[in-house]
């Protein structure tokens, strides 16, 4: 016989000489593992494999001692992640050993390994029963421990009575274990709770304090799911609380009160003084913490009450003591408690001394956990006065400290927090939007675009970058729409730089999605240079700024579009237009979609600038005209890249714009591209010279930054050059007369273009002689209507206003909107139609064919096909086809009528009414300025118009809240499975709540009890039904059957309100109420609850 215990090593030593021990002992195994793990992982794994094989062999022997040994070894190996469920039967064998030593090993292994094995548990049940009824109380204790861990629904049913018996065992050790084991049985077998509720309550009076403590433990756990059933015993709990000195017990009772207080707010009056007293008296911080938890989480504080405010202050005072200890754990729990209190009384963060400092301190804490927690409440910290400091503190968190990287998740959190803080109350706290833009730029630089020089900042992951870029981009977008005065700033300081910076495109194209949008939408705001004069690098006269703006636009446009230049220059490195080249290969469709729109808007902006600055009587001088045409041509070329994009939306947008732009181009040039070609070659030549120059100047080691510089200098040239030329032009133009005949001038222009265009270059530097223009620019052309009027009308017809989230959903669907009936019911033939020519004879011929197709596909019998009828049919088909213009008078009338009626309907419609209301509100808000009250020291508060969000109606949040509620139910693998009790209890309790609020009676004791009884009766009924169902039929019940059985059971419950269910009565023994009064009410209720119950079952 072998022994394996260290303590018995003496015995072991004595036995060894007899050569009885052949197996490897446990200590051999452990030593083996230790020595092998020092060598290599391979040798360890091979050693473990051998060891497990040995155990397997040992398990097959008949000797129980050897088996027990093997089981013990395996349970050691279980720690290393080896599954041992395959030897469950052997474990069971060891459990059943008569020797306590082996039994103990068996139970130990069983607790570690048994998991819901049904077939095995039938055998286990008998073993448990046997051990529970053992004469030795130690064995009983062992069995109870085992039951508590292993219990399954079936086992709990079978073992229930035996465990209940043990509740009255003579030894408190057994009683205590039994009651804790009962809780596990309740979880699996809720029926038992109903039957044995009183037995549990009885145990509160147990003579042994550990039993009382265990009982309270059980009650506390159940009360988390269903507090209602314990409300009657409040006095009992209270007296225990007052008597005991055991902090463990007190904390448990406080936990219980916390759950009870949520359903019985009136108890607050009685227990709150005691809790406060407890909190102030005790030294144990865990108890103080629990007291605060009980007060706060037990919903004993209401923000309105003055008394509660005092209580909260007291709590905060206690919490402040935690922070003084410098113990990080107390700091953490203190912070949690503080967060909970502050959520109810946010004002205390400034009213109580030291709170703000503590929170700030926590934000700066090196411990990420504390830092994260404190981020939760730092928005309470913010006032108009200190927002700059708070945001600064938050920004500092993004900076890596002494080699430690800031985790990406923290970056996200901090970023979100800053945005949340800033946008609070529609940006009312922001002192100065220029400052805020700087903050946003800092965020971008600290998260998305780490400086390439600082090597320790590793690139942020794609997902995080996308997320941050999306949020920050959104914020810029919000700012641009909401704060009109800041738009120019955003464009100048952020957008233009980012759009021209190839790194942004490289690292996070997502950011550009919003930036492109802003650029496109507010390109006209790119006026003047809002950068302060000391920063102003481009010194220019005031009169030229407007033309400089045009230069900027053109520059952006070229940066994005000029990819062909590089190709024609045969550049492969040091591209002149890296961004444009990258855009073509960009795979981010969301960005491309926006880019396409933005480019057209940008072009539209350029066109309108041209016509504003250069036009005379609505006509452009020929050179400018050609420049515009050249831009248009380049844009068309550029958009052509996405003609065949794989992304539908990109393709669609590109194509629809292409159609329009090509049409415009045609209108401008009449298919004569000579002027454009000339400009193009000039441009290429210009850049070729430029590249050559730069190559000469800066040798071969031109890196990106140099490249940018080059670009910058080039841009200066451009900007300088354009206005100078223009000034000349202006002078010239003043004296010129515009030709009255457009057609004539156009013809003339085309003649002239071939001569002049070659020399003409918008990017020409100062070398270009101004005198040159005086001869050639005598011709002027009028831009086609498509460009001068139609294009801007796409973008500028309506002002873009911020709209509140979800408000769009509130707009009522117009009454006359019919989405069901097809607009064009004759869709099927449209393909044939396009092939068809309009000539009537041909039509006649085809009509036969068409008819055949029709009859074959649609089985429409077509008789008497006269040409007239065909024509009518055709007209009918074409009526709604946007590609055909109907010429007949009747049709026009119809259309006119249609439109009219639409208008009339609109004005009647309620949605339109609200719309007009909205606009009026918003316009009034537009004029409203945010008034400053105090002058902050550092940053002056600007008077800024912030557009309010437009909303319809009042609470649009409801839907969202509901959604949130729906999604909060999550399953967690780690949570102990108490879903049984959950379902059973939650249902009844929630019903009780529903009903009580329905009747307008707030938690009256008698009503509660009556309902409780009712609900429990129903629940038991349900449970019984469920079981019956399980037994009788397999799951699926036809709904009709169910409903009939429901109605039957309903009548049953009504009739047998008291008598039929003794279990329900048991629970509410203490109540002696007049029942007849309530009965009428409850009958009605039961109908209601029944319906709900049915739904639950079907679920």
């Amino acid at each position, binding site marked *: 016989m072998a*022994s394996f215990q*260290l303590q*018995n090593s003496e*015995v072991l030593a004595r036995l060894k000489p007899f050569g009885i021990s052949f197996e490897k002992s446990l200590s051999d195994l*452990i030593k083996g593992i230790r020595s092998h793990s020092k060598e290599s992982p391979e040798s360890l794994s091979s050693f473990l494999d051998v060891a497990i094989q040995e155990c397997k062999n040992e398990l097959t022997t008949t000797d129980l*001692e050897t088996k027990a040994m093997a089981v*013990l070894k395996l349970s*050691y190996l*279980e*720690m290393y*992640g080896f*599954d041992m469920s395959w030897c469950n039967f052997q474990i069971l064998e060891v459990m059943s050993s008569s*020797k*306590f*030593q*082996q039994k103990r090993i068996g139970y*130990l292994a069983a*607790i*570690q390994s048994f998991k*819901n094995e049904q077939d095995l548990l039938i055998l286990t049940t008998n073993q448990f029963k046997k051990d529970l009824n053992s004469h*030795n109380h*130690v064995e009983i*204790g*062992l069995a109870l*421990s085992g039951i508590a*861990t292993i219990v399954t629904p079936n086992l709990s049913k079978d073992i229930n009575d035996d465990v209940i018996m043990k509740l009255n065992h003579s030894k408190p*050790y057994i009683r205590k*274990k039994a009651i*804790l*084991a009962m*809780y*596990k049985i309740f979880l699996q077998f809720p029926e038992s709770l109903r039957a044995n509720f009183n037995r549990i309550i009885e145990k509160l009076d147990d003579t042994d304090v*550990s039993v009382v*403590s*265990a009982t309270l*433990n059980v009650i*506390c*756990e159940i009360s988390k799911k269903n507090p209602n059933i314990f409300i009657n015993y409040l006095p009992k709990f209270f007296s225990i609380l007052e008597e005991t000195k*055991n902090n*463990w017990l007190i904390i448990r009772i406080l*936990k219980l009160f916390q759950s009870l207080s949520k359903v019985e707010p009136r108890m607050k009056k009685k227990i709150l003084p005691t809790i406060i007293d407890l909190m102030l008296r005790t030294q144990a*911080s*865990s108890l103080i913490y*629990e007291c605060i938890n009980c007060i706060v*989480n037990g919903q004993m504080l209401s923000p309105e009450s003055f008394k509660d405010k005092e209580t909260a202050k007291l709590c905060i005072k206690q919490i402040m003591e935690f922070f003084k200890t410098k113990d*990080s*754990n107390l700091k*953490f*729990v203190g912070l*949690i408690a503080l967060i909970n209190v502050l959520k109810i009384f946010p004002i205390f963060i400034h009213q109580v001394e030291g709170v703000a400092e503590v929170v700030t301190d926590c934000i700066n804490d*090196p*411990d990420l*956990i504390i830092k994260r927690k404190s981020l939760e409440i730092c928005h309470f910290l913010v006032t108009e006065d200190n927002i700059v400091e708070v945001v600064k503190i938050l920004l500092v968190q993004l900076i890596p400290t002494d080699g430690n990287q800031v985790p990406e998740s923290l970056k996200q959190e901090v970023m979100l927090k800053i945005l949340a803080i800033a946008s609070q109350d529609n940006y009312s706290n922001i002192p100065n939007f220029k400052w805020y833009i700087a903050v946003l730029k800092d965020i971008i630089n600290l998260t998305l675009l780490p400086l390439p020089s600082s090597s320790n900042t590793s690139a942020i992951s794609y997902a995080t970058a996308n997320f941050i870029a999306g949020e920050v981009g959104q914020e810029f977008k919000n700012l641009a729409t909401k704060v009109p005065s800041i738009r120019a700033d955003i464009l100048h300081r952020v957008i233009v730089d980012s759009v021209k910076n190839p790194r942004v495109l490289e690292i996070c194209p997502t950011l550009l999605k919003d930036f492109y949008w802003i650029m496109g939408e507010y390109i006209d705001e790119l006026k003047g240079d809002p950068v302060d004069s000391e920063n102003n690098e481009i010194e220019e006269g005031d009169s030229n700024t407007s033309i400089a703006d045009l230069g900027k636009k053109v520059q952006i446009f070229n940066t994005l579009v000029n990819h062909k230049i590089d190709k024609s220059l045969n550049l492969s490195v040091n591209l002149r237009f890296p961004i444009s080249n990258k855009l073509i290969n960009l795979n981010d469709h969301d960005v491309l979609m926006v880019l396409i729109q933005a480019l057209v808007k940008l072009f539209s902006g350029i066109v309108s600038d041209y016509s504003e600055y250069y036009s005379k009587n609505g006509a452009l001088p020929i050179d400018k005209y050609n420049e515009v045409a050249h831009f248009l041509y380049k844009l068309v070329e550029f958009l052509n890249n996405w003609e065949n994009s794989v992304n539908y939306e990109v393709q669609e947008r590109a194509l629809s714009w292409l159609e329009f732009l090509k049409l415009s181009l045609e209108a401008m040039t009449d298919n004569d591209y000579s002027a454009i070609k000339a400009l193009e070659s000039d441009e290429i030549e210009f850049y070729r010279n430029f590249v050559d120059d730069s190559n000469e100047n800066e040798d071969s080691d031109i890196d990106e930054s140099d490249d940018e510089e080059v670009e910058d200098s080039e841009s200066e040239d451009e900007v300088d050059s354009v206005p100078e030329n223009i000034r000349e032009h202006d002078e010239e133009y003043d004296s010129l007369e515009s030709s009255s005949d457009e057609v004539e001038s156009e013809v003339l222009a085309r003649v002239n273009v071939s001569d002049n265009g070659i020399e003409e270059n918008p990017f020409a530097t100062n070398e270009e002689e101004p005198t040159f223009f005086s001869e050639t620019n005598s011709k002027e052309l009028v831009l086609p209507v498509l460009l001068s009027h139609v294009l801007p009308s796409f973008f500028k017809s309506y002002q873009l206003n911020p709209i509140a989230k979800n408000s769009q959903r509130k707009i009522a669907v117009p009454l006359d909107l019919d989405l069901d009936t097809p607009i064009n019911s004759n869709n099927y033939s449209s393909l044939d139609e396009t092939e068809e020519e309009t000539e009537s004879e041909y039509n006649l011929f085809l009509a036969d064919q068409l008819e055949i197709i029709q009859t074959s596909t649609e089985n429409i019998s077509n008789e008497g096909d006269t040409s007239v009828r065909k024509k009518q049919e055709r007209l009918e088909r074409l009526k709604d086809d946007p590609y055909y213009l109907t010429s007949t008078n009747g049709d026009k009338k119809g259309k006119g009528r249609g439109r009219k009626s639409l208008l009339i309907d609109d004005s009647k419609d309620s949605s339109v009414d609200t719309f007009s209301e909205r606009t009026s509100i918003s316009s009034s808000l537009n004029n409203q300025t945010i008034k400053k009250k105090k002058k902050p020291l550092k940053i002056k508060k600007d008077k800024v118009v912030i557009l309010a969000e437009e909303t319809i109606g009042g609470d649009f949040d409801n839907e969202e809240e509901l959604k949130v509620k729906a999604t909060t139910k*999550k399953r*967690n*693998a*780690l*949570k*102990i*499975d108490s879903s049984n009790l959950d379902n059973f209890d939650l249902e009844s309790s929630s019903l009780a709540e529903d009903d009580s609020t329905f009747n307008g009676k707030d938690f009256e004791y008698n009503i509660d009890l009556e309902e409780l009884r009712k609900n429990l009766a129903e629940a038991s009924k349900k449970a019984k039904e469920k079981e019956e169902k399980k037994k009788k039929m397999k799951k699926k019940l036809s709904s009709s059957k169910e409903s009939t059985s429901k109605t039957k059971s309903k009548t049953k419950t009504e009739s047998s309100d008291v008598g039929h269910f003794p279990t329900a009565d048991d629970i509410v023994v203490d109540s002696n109420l007049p029942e007849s009064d309530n009965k009428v009410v409850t009958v009605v209720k039961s109908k209601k609850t029944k319906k709900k119950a049915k739904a639950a079952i079907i679920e």
Partner: protein
Amino acid sequence: MAIQFLYLLSRQGKVRLSKWYQTNSQKEKAKITRELSTLILSRRPKMCNVIEYRDIKIIYKRYASLFFIIGIDSEDNELIGLEIIHRFVEQMDRFFGNVCELDIIFGFEKAYHILDELLIDGYIQESSKKEILRRIGQQDELENLDEFDNILS
């Protein structure tokens, strides 16, 4: 106060004791253990001992070379969690007499027994310090009787 699991981790990241109070697959357990190990081993001594993980809280405490790690419900009292860990260590300390990592490695079943007397399926069953050791003593006595029988027979 339901403890979801308890395990002991050496500074090298080796599991020295593991107890799960709810059904998890071996794979899931390994995953949680791995994730928590990297989290906890990377934390510095002065930091707080509470980690929010998934939707539970992890309380850990280092004693000599061992980390004692428990998972509790998020609404449970963190300080009590620490207290339970301390109680467990105290009990082992008394039982083994100045407990060290090796004691727990070689006497792992004893450690489990103590734990089973302290907690029953994750719930504190005994808050008295003396009681637990008394129970363990009783059981050991019974074992030794068996042992004695073995030798005699």
